[in-house]
């Protein structure tokens, strides 16, 4: 129950930050995808089940607020959360390399699939342009932001984790 409430709050918070705060701050045109950080992290921190649900919820919100084909982001983010969850066994709280690689590859996969299904399918063939001007900046920016976001998620996870152990013993 506690996990459900915390996940719910995190999803809403991250969504609002991504859609309202980042466009308002206007560092650049490119917005980092912090929802993918949340989905990816809840995947490999909590397992494929949690990752799947968090991914579905995030994708669902994105679907309502962004694009006319409802369900595209839901399924994409759900799969990303699920696949990250399969690597749950490799998760150690102190290791930073694997989370970084996971976030990077999740965001890259998300961007590439978005390009493939929503742009290439409408005959926008100039892949190199989109790669250099949108995908790469977004991935790099997301990785930079994850340096700030990851410790927060890590702290929440460590805190809940400890509590759980205390309750069961």
């Amino acid at each position, binding site marked *: 129950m506690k996990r459900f409430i915390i996940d719910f709050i995190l999803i809403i918070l991250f969504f*609002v930050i991504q*859609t309202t705060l980042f466009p*308002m701050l206007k560092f650049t045109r490119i917005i980092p995808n912090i929802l993918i950080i949340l989905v990816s992290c809840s995947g490999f921190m909590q397992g494929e089940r949690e990752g*799947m649900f968090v991914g579905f919820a995030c994708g669902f919100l994105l679907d309502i607020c*962004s694009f006319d084909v409802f369900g595209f982001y*839901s399924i994409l983010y759900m799969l990303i959360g699920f696949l990250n969850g399969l690597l749950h066994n490799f998760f150690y709280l102190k290791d930073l390399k694997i989370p970084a690689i996971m976030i990077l590859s999740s965001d890259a996969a998300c961007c590439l699939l978005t390009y493939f299904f*929503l742009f290439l399918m*409408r005959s926008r063939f*100039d892949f190199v342009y989109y790669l250099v001007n*949108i995908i790469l900046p977004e991935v790099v920016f997301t990785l930079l932001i994850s340096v700030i976001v990851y410790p927060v998620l890590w702290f929440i996870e460590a805190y809940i984790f400890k509590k759980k152990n205390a309750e069961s013993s």
Partner: protein
Amino acid sequence: MSPLVRKPEEKYKLPTKYWLLILSAISVILMLVTFVFDIPLKPLNEVVSVTVVPLQKGISIVGENLYSKKELFKQVNELVDQNNKLMEQVNELTIQNNKLLQDTIELNSLLKLYELDQTYSDYPKTGARVISGSTGNWFSTFIIDKGSNDGLQVGMNVLAGGGLVGRITEVGANWSRVLSIIDDTSNVSCMVLTTNDHLIVSGSLANMENGYIVFNQLSENAKNVEVGDKIVTSNISDVYLPGIPVGNISYMEKDSNHLSVSGYITPSVNFDHISEVLVITKLKTELE
């Protein structure tokens, strides 16, 4: 401890793979419903009205206040200088204005003679605040803080700073989603103001960075169209009301098929800094 102490029974949980299948199936069905059959999903929209929109409204109001405070301090000195200059200008302009007023009166009477007096400034409008930008880097949609409670409907036109911004594509109780004309999926039927030649204006992600939107399908026979000509929404569009300014032609070239002309348009709205918009509360379909 006696060996008879039972473990508390765990609650049954549906295995993850079944959840994955169920949720995938739901997504695929929703995709089919919205994409193939084009059915709006009203009840789902209310999820956002309850959860996200109130927070977004709060943040955007606070953010705007902070921003305007900061700007205020910066600008006090500049304002004094500007004020002096402006006072001089006011004198000049008052004289010009008097002259223009006379012209307007004359123009109005002439327009009445031609029964052309309905321009976009006569449409009923309502103001709204932009509370959320686009969700990623691929599409240019944004959320405004008014919805069906304020009488907004899907298809209504959205303006800012005297030019066309886009149209409403989704409405919730207290929010609406606006698809802007610079979005990669947007197409607007327009015409050249001076010659009434029709053309199609499409948003393009690749040209957005340079501040351009693309036009095409201007007939090759339209010889009088020149760079700098004003583009307005056409009267044959089925969603956009006629006569709303879109931008000016900044570059044009003949297509390789020698039948049509295409090029770039500089939009009359600065899409980087939209915080308030006007929604025309009249649909094109109601107009006829």
